[in-house]
C-alpha cells in the first residue's frame, strides 16, 4: 500500500512526461481500419425511383425516413452517393427528370432541388413560396405532406420539361433545366385542401382535386401550358369525407365517407362531377369496422383495409364496384408501372410465415399473373411494408421484374428471379439505445481451428510479414500485408480476448429490432425482432438495460438484456418486458405488463444469479419490483428505506423526489408493488426558467480515488456521489432558436441537485446565454455546452465539486494507521459542505452529443468525446477543462500538468477520433471500458455507425501496435550468438594457455 502510494506521483509524472511529449493521439495512415470500422446506412426507404437506362449503371434513387436521398447500385446495393438533409428539411417527394436529374421536394414543399443523377452534385435549387393566407399550413407538417404532390409531366413548353409542384397552397410549374418557376396558380377557395394533382396522359390539362370544408369536393381544371384556370367545379356530399383519395383513372377517384362505411366513386369527366355511393357491406359480406383506403395508383383498381384484411376492388364502368380479391395476410402493394403503351403492371407482396409471396399482375387483368414466386424470408425481418416494382426486358423479349421491398425491420431487399439479390440492414440507421455485452469465454473445442487455411498460406503470410519488417517489401507486398492486417481473423473471433477489446454491442433500433454487433469488425452476430403477442400487436421499443451480467457466481449462465417496450404510442400504454440472451439472441421470456412503464430504475443490487433488480415506475407512481422472486424481494426489503426516486416534469419545470411507502393498496394484493410518497420538490419559476437538460452520472462508472493531489502535496477530496443531478434551465423566451432573443432576455441557470434530499448544492447563472445545452457528468465534474449571445460564440463550462468536510483529514499518522472514516458509508442526510470551482471557455463548434471516456478502473485520465456539427467525433483532453487553469501557472502547477489558460479550447485536427470519416446524422456516442485499463471502446451512431478504440493516456500498459518485435528478436538472437561465439573463443584461448 505504502509503496504503491508513493509511487503513484512518480508514475503520474512519467505519464505526464510521455503525454506532454506527444499531446495528440493520432494514427498513421496504415492504422486506419485496424481497430475501427465504419458502416454506412440510409434508413427506412419512403420512396424509390428506378433508373435503368441502357446507358450507364443501373441504379435506384431512394428517399428515406432518416431524410437521406441516396443512389444505390441495383446490382449490389452499394451506395453511389448519398445526401443527408437537415432535420427541418424533410423530403416530401423524389422523382427523376429527363433521365439525368433527381428532383426532390423538401421542407414542407418549399424547396425544390435538382441533383445530377450520376454523381449527386446539386444542379439547381429553387424556393417555392405560397400565398400568405396559407401560412397556417406551415404549422401542421403532417397535414402539409398530404397535400403535396410532385407530378412529373412530359409537357413541352417551349422545348422545356416542366415539373408541377403543389405546395403552400399554390400550384407551381418549374422548369426542369434550371429550376425557374414558369407559372404559378393560387386557389381562392377558403380552406381548400388539395388531395391529388392529376395530369391525364396526352393532354394539356391538369386537374387539381381536393376537399373544402369537410363535405365539399372541389375540382379545378388548369391549362398546363400557362396555368390558366379553365374550369372550377364543386359538389357537396352531405355526410363528409375521410381525407384520403385513391386514383383509379385519370378522371375518377375513390373516397370514403366520414364513417368509413360507404365508398364514393367520384368522376369528373369533362368537368362534370358525379358521385356514386356504394356501401361497403353491399360488396363485402362480412365487413365490420371502418375501412381505410390504402394509397395506390393502379388504374381501375383500388385497395381498402378493414381490420387486417386487405380488399382489392375493381371499378367497372360507371361507378360499379366489384371485389376481386380478399387477402388476410399482411400485404403491400406497389404503384403501377407502365410496361407497354396500354399495359400497366403492379406488384403485391404477401407475408406468410417464413415465406413471402410475390405476385405481379397487369392492372386490367386480375387473373393473369405475370410473376408468381415464393421466397424464403428470415422471420426476424417481419412483414413487408413497402414494395417498388421495376421491369427489364429478357433476352427472349419477355418482361422480367425486379422488386425492391422494405421490411418491418426497415431492411431493404432486392428480389429478382425468385432470389434475394442483395439486402441492406437499414434499420441500423435509427438506433435508439445501445448496451455492451461480453462474448463467451473461449473453451476447448470452440476455438481457433479455422484461423489459417493451410500451411502454404500461413507460410506465405509470415514471409510477407518478415519482408515487411526487413523493409524489403515491394508496394504490392505492402498492400497485401495491409489487407492481411485488416482481415485478421483474430479480431472477429467469437470469444473473449485477454484485453477485453472483443465485445458485443447490443443495439435497439426504432423498428423494434435488436442487433448484436461484433466490436472487431462490426458484423451482425444475431438479430431479433421483438415479438408481437396476443396482448400487444405493435410493441414500440424504448430502452435497453443489462439484466444479467454473470461474472462471479452463475458463470455458466449466459448474460441477458432487458428490453422495455410499450404497447402503443401513448405514454400510459401497458409495457412489455423482453429478456434476450446476448450470446444467442433468443428471447428467454416476455412479460406483458398490466401497468405502464414511465421510468426504469436499475438498482445497485443483484440476486444470487446476478440478475439486477429493477424498479419500474408506472403512470400512477407505483413502483414495481422485477424480477418477481422472493429472493429479490428479500434483498429489496433490506434496502427498502434507502431507495428513493425522482421525476423530472420538464413541461411544468418541477423536479420531485419520492420515497417508497408501503405495499400497494387497492385491487389485487401484489407483494412486488409499492406505493410512493412525495418527499421534496424543486419548483422552478415557470415565467423565468424552463428545464432544458438533465444529466446524471453513468451507473456503471468506476472512480479510482476520492482524493485529488495538488502539486504542493495538498489534497482535495472530490465530492463523488451517484445521487447528483445536473439541471440546466433557460429563460422560456430563449428556448427557441439561437438569435431569436436579445442577450438581455436570455439566461441559463445550472444547478447541482442532490436527488435523495432535494438539496441544491450549487447554482450558477450565465446571463446572455442560450441553449441548446449539452452536458456530461462524470466523477465530480460536469461539462456543459451552450451559446453565449453576447460573445456570439459557443461556450463550454466546467464545474468541479469538492467535499470540504473531509478536507481536515490531513494527519499522516491517522492515515497510516487507518484511523480515518474516509471510506465508511455516508448518508446524504448528513450536512455536506461542498466547494465548487468552475471556468468557461469558448468553443468553435456547435455540438450534437457529448460523452466521456470510461475505463475499467477509472485510473486513466479522461477525454471528452464531442460530436461536432460536421458529424465527426473530437477527443478533447479533460485537462483543457480544468477550473484550476490560470494564465501563468507556477512551476509546480506546470509539473502537475496544468495548461496555461486560454480563452478558447483548442481543436487539434489530429485528435478527431473519426479521422477522415463522417458519422452522418450523428446522434449518440457510447463508451465502454475494455478490460485493459488504458483503453476504452467508443461507438458513435447516427445514420452511420463508427467504432474505435481509444487510449486517452496512450497505451501505457501494453506494447503498442507498432512496437518492433523484429528488432527485439534480432537483438536477442544477436546476443545469444555473441555469447556463444565469445564462449568458444575463450575456451580456445584457455586451451592454448594450458599448452604454453
Amino acid at each position, binding site marked *: 500500500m505504502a509503496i504503491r502510494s*508513493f509511487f*503513484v506521483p512518480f508514475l503520474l509524472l512519467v505519464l505526464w512526461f510521455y503525454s506532454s511529449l506527444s499531446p495528440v493521439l493520432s494514427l498513421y495512415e496504415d492504422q486506419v481500419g485496424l481497430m475501427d470500422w465504419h458502416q454506412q446506412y440510409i434508413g427506412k426507404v419512403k420512396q424509390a425511383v428506378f433508373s435503368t437506362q441502357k446507358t450507364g449503371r443501373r441504379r435506384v434513387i431512394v428517399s428515406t425516413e432518416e431524410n437521406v436521398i441516396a443512389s444505390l447500385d441495383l446490382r449490389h446495393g452499394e451506395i453511389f452517393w448519398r445526401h443527408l438533409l437537415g432535420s427541418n428539411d424533410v423530403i416530401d417527394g423524389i422523382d427523376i427528370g429527363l433521365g439525368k436529374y433527381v428532383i426532390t421536394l423538401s421542407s414542407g414543399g418549399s424547396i425544390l432541388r435538382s441533383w445530377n443523377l450520376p454523381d449527386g452534385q446539386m444542379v439547381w435549387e429553387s424556393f417555392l413560396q405560397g400565398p400568405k393566407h396559407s401560412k397556417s399550413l406551415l404549422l401542421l407538417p403532417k397535414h402539409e405532406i398530404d397535400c403535396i404532390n410532385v407530378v412529373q409531366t412530359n409537357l413541352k413548353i417551349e422545348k422545356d420539361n416542366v415539373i408541377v409542384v403543389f405546395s403552400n397552397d399554390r400550384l407551381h410549374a418549374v422548369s426542369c433545366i434550371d429550376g425557374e418557376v414558369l407559372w404559378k396558380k393560387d386557389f381562392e377557395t377558403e380552406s381548400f385542401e388539395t388531395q391529388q394533382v392529376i395530369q391525364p396522359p396526352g393532354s394539356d390539362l391538369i386537374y387539381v382535386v381536393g376537399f373544402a370544408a369537410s363535405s365539399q369536393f372541389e375540382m379545378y381544371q388548369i391549362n398546363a401550358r400557362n396555368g390558366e384556370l379553365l374550369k372550377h367545379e364543386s359538389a357537396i356530399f352531405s355526410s363528409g369525407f375521410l381525407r384520403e383519395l385513391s386514383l383509379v383513372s385519370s378522371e375518377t377517384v375513390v373516397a370514403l365517407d366520414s364513417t368509413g362505411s360507404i365508398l364514393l366513386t367520384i368522376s369528373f369527366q369533362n368537368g362534370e362531377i358525379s358521385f356514386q355511393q356504394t356501401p361497403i357491406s353491399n360488396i363485402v359480406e362480412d365487413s365490420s369496422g371502418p375501412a381505410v383506403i390504402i394509397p395506390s395508383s393502379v388504374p381501375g383498381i383500388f385497395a381498402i383495409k378493414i381490420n387486417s384484411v386487405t380488399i382489392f376492388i375493381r371499378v367497372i364502368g360507371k361507378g360499379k364496384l366489384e371485389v376481386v380479391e380478399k387477402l388476410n395476410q399482411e400485404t403491400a402493394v406497389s404503384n403501377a408501372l407502365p410496361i407497354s403503351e396500354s399495359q400497366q403492371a403492379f406488384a403485391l407482396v404477401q407475408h406468410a410465415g417464413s415465406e413471402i409471396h410475390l405476385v405481379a399482375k397487369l392492372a386490367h387483368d386480375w387473373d393473369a399473373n405475370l410473376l408468381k414466386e415464393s421466397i424464403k424470408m428470415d422471420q426476424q425481418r417481419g412483414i413487408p411494408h413497402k414494395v417498388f416494382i421495376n421491369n427489364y426486358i429478357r433476352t427472349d423479349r419477355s418482361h422480367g421484374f425486379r422488386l425492391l421491398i422494405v421490411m418491418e425491420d426497415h431492411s431493404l431487399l432486392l428480389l429478382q428471379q425468385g432470389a434475394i439479390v442483395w439486402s441492406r440492414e437499414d434499420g441500423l440507421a435509427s438506433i435508439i439505445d445501445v448496451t455492451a455485452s461480453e462474448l463467451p469465454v473461449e473453451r476447448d473445442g470452440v476455438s481457433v481451428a479455422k484461423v489459417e487455411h493451410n500451411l502454404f498460406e500461413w507460410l506465405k503470410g509470415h514471409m510477407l510479414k518478415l519482408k515487411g519488417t526487413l523493409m524489403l517489401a515491394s508496394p504490392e507486398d505492402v498492400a497485401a500485408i495491409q489487407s492481411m492486417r485488416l482481415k485478421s481473423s483474430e479480431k472477429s473471433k467469437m470469444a473473449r480476448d485477454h484485453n477485453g477489446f472483443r465485445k458485443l454491442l447490443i443495439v435497439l433500433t426504432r423498428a423494434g429490432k435488436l442487433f448484436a454487433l461484433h466490436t472487431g469488425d462490426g458484423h451482425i452476430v444475431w438479430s431479433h425482432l421483438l415479438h408481437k403477442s396476443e396482448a400487444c400487436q405493435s410493441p414500440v421499443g424504448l430502452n435497453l438495460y443489462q439484466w444479467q451480467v454473470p461474472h462471479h457466481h452463475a458463470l455458466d449462465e449466459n448474460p441477458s438484456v432487458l428490453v422495455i417496450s410499450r404497447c402503443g404510442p401513448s405514454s400510459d400504454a401497458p409495457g412489455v418486458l423482453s429478456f434476450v440472451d446476448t450470446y444467442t439472441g433468443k428471447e428467454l421470456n416476455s412479460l406483458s405488463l398490466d401497468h405502464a412503464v414511465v421510468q*426504469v430504475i436499475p438498482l*445497485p443490487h443483484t440476486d444470487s444469479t446476478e440478475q439486477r433488480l429493477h424498479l419500474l415506475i408506472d403512470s400512477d407512481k407505483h413502483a414495481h419490483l422485477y424480477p418477481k422472486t422472493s429472493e429479490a424481494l428479500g434483498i429489496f426489503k433490506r434496502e427498502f428505506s434507502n*431507495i428513493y426516486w425522482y*421525476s423530472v416534469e420538464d413541461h411544468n419545470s418541477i423536479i420531485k423526489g419520492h420515497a417508497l411507502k408501503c405495499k400497494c393498496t387497492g385491487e389485487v394484493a401484489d407483494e412486488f408493488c409499492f406505493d410512493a410518497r412525495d418527499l421534496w420538490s424543486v419548483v422552478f419559476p415557470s415565467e423565468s426558467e424552463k428545464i432544458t437538460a438533465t444529466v446524471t452520472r453513468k451507473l456503471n462508472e468506476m*472512480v479510482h480515488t476520492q*482524493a485529488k493531489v495538488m502539486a504542493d502535496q495538498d489534497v482535495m477530496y472530490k465530492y463523488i456521489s451517484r445521487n447528483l443531478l445536473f439541471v440546466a434551465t433557460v429563460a422560456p423566451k430563449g428556448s427557441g432558436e439561437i438569435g431569436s432573443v436579445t442577450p438581455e432576455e436570455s439566461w441559463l441557470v445550472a444547478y447541482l441537485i442532490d436527488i435523495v434530499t432535494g438539496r441544491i448544492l450549487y447554482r450558477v447563472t450565465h446571463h446572455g446565454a442560450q441553449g441548446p445545452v449539452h452536458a456530461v457528468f462524470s466523477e465530480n465534474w460536469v461539462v456543459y455546452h451552450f451559446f453565449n449571445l453576447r460573445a456570439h460564440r459557443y461556450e463550454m463550462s466546467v464545474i468541479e465539486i469538492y467535499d470540504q468536510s473531509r478536507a481536515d483529514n490531513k494527519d499522516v499518522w491517522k492515515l497510516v494507521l487507518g484511523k480515518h472514516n*474516509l*471510506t465508511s458509508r455516508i448518508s446524504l442526510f448528513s450536512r455536506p459542505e461542498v466547494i465548487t470551482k468552475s471556468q468557461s471557455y469558448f468553443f468553435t463548434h456547435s455540438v450534437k452529443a457529448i460523452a466521456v471516456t470510461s475505463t475499467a478502473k477509472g485510473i486513466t485520465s479522461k477525454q471528452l468525446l464531442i460530436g461536432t456539427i460536421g458529424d465527426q467525433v473530437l477527443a478533447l483532453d479533460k485537462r483543457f477543462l480544468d477550473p484550476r487553469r490560470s494564465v501563468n501557472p507556477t512551476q509546480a502547477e506546470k509539473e502537475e500538468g496544468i495548461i496555461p489558460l486560454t480563452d478558447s479550447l483548442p481543436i487539434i485536427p489530429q485528435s478527431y477520433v473519426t479521422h477522415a470519416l463522417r458519422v452522418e446524422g450523428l446522434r449518440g456516442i457510447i463508451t465502454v471500458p475494455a478490460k485493459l485499463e488504458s483503453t476504452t471502446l467508443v461507438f458513435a451512431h447516427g445514420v452511420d455507425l463508427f467504432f474505435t478504440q481509444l487510449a486517452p493516456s496512450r497505451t501505457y500498459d501494453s506494447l503498442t501496435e507498432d512496437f518492433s518485435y523484429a528488432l527485439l528478436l534480432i537483438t536477442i538472437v544477436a546476443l545469444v550468438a555473441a555469447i556463444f561465439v565469445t564462449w568458444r573463443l575463450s575456451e580456445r584461448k584457455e586451451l592454448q594457455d594450458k599448452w604454453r
Partner: protein
Amino acid sequence: MEKGKGVMGSGQRWAVDFSDNSTAPSSRDILDPLGFTRASVDQDDSTVSRQKKDAESNWKAQKAWEVAQAPFKNLLMMGFMMWMAGNTVHLFSIGITFSALWQPISALQGVGKVFEPYKDSKVELLGPKLLFIALNLGGLALGVWKLNTLGLLPTHASDWVSSLPPAQEVEYSGGGIPI
C-alpha cells in the same frame, strides 16, 4: 599449484612442497625438529617483539581513526553531488540519491570487515567504530533527506489517500425524465 595437483590426479605418490613456511611456524601441524623447543624462542624474542608490537598497535589505532573518518569526505562529496542534482525527479537525481542511500548501508553492513586489519587486543576500536557508524548514519540521513525533498517519501497525507476508493453512500436514487 592447483594445476599441478590436477595433472597428478589421485594416484599421488610423493610431493615436494617448495613454499616457504618459516615465517608462519605456528600454522604447522607437523612436529618440530629434535632439540628445538618453540617456547624458548618466543621467550627470547619477547622484549624485541613487545616494542615492535607497541609501535604496531599505535600505528593500527592511528589507521583505524583514519578509516573511521573516511566517510566524512564522502559525505561532503555526496552533499555536493546532491546540490548539483537539483530537486526534480529525473534519472541523475534518482541515481545520486539511491547511491547516497546504498553506500552508508553497505558500509554499515561491513563495519566488522573494515576494521578487521586493525583488530588487536591492545587497540581500542570502539571509538573509531562509533565514529564510522555515526558518519555513515549521517550519510544515510542525508540520503533520506534528499529522498524527501524529491517527494518520494510518504510523508504527506496525499501519499496515503491517493488510492482510497470513494465512500459508499447509504441512500440510492434513480429516475429522470419519463420515457
